């Protein structure tokens, strides 16, 4: 699996959405599954998928599908 596929799979699994929903409009609280609890689960899944530990600010800033990809580059994860 490519990094992009792994990243997409986290969103698809955590928020029960189709791949086609994943674009720059997919943001925090845009689906009921992505609430504060869903956010915590998604962050844990991203960390596990890429074997990283994110900083507090990055966890909170991780507010959209697009923003998340930018943040991952800080952890040397290239999508």
């Amino acid at each position, binding site marked *: 699996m490519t990094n992009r596929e792994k990243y997409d799979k986290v969103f698809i699994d955590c928020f029960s959405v189709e791949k086609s929903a994943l674009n720059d409009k997919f943001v*925090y609280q845009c689906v009921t599954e992505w609430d504060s609890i869903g956010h*915590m689960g998604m962050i844990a899944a991203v960390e596990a998928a890429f074997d990283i530990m994110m900083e507090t600010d990055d966890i909170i800033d991780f507010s959209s599908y697009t923003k998340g990809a930018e943040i991952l580059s800080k952890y040397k994860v290239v999508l």
Partner: protein
Amino acid sequence: MDFYNDIGAFGSSTAVITEDSGRITYAELLAAADAIKDQVRDRCLVFSVCENSPGSLAGYLAFLRGRIVPLLLHNCIDRGLFETLLSTYRPAYIWLPREKAKAADWGREVFHYGGYSLLRTKHEPDYALHDDLALLLSTSGSTGSPKLVRLSYKNINSNAEAIAQYLGITRTDRPITTLPMSYTYGLSILNSHLLKGCALILTDKTLMDKAFWALLKTNEATTFGGVPYVYEMLKKLRFSRMELPSLKTLTQAGGKMSPELVGEFAAVCGQKGARFFVMYGQTEATARMSYLPSEQAISRAGSIGIAIPGGEFWLEDESGSVIAESDTAGELVYKGGNVALGYAAGRKDLCKGDENGGVLRTGDMAKRDAGGFYYIVGRKKRFLKLFGNRVNLDEIEQLIKSAGYGCACAGEDDHLRIYTSEKENQAAIKSLAAARTGIHPSAFEVICLESLPFNEAGKVLYSALK
């Protein structure tokens, strides 16, 4: 002493800090409350759809000051359930966010303030309200039933005063909201701080929102409360490394948190110079029944502590006799001025007076240590028999959680279902449960979910686990 009347004395002090860091004084808040109150005039039933906002708070104070009885409901309440409640209770008015009022045909707007509308419904009361009845809340176990808890003026004042006393709340405290106002724990934080003339920072933003932390820091919040999952989030956010010098007091209630996590937060708070209080309560007791003094938080991690000032605990065995020995489990019974009048299943119950006489059978099983501190060991009805063995679902949950796996348990005799989002660890969870209980693994089924269902108060929604 009625705090909602007495707080007029705080006049020019700040009562509310809004999401955009605006200030509202006690005098301004009470002027708004009294304008709302004057529209309603007669004692009647009102549905109040709550946010953590000035409009919502002004309405709540208006109703208490005017002896108007509100039912507090969460703003995200399912529309079908809301309409069921409307037809069951037939309130004379609804106080709700304006955009919500415009989207439905529940009544005619007669007043508005702070983004809220007061709607006069078409209902004419065909029921009476008991003189002592102050407030209605739904129980936090949200099963979608119209069953409500009836609280008195004495209940609200007595609990607010007890909480302010044991937490040592002073006028310089400044809570930031992390819980819905319609939820008994969230409401108790507002009541106990209003009593002392504190400024309340009102927001519906969550811990996972950047704006929440900015608001907390800018306005130097001193305290907030959290249910267990809030503390799991704080841990994920590496709370121990955050710089939040204004925080002085954290409280935890709304469910049993693992002793490991309690110990961890007690230690972290100690390092930060803050106090950490574990507390216990139910809507049926207005909010709080006990607290663990913060200096005991590490040594007695896992305890719910001692009864609040003015309250009393004892344990009863299955025959109803009081258990005198320590370390013996029995049903936890509470007595105090904060025990609700009773339940209501419909509007005809609103004329009923006190049915509990100040005594609440909690339905929780507990034991008491030799020092007089109480520990919840389970809920009376959450038991299963597995191959003849009596098994407590809460204890199974705790044992799996303490191994690091989030879960919720349900089931029938000889079939305990463990719901988890730990896809990779299904087999490990099953063998752990079997090994720790000594019961054959075929009694356990591990079911994987994307996430566990929680209600808006952060408690596991067992009714959704079928």
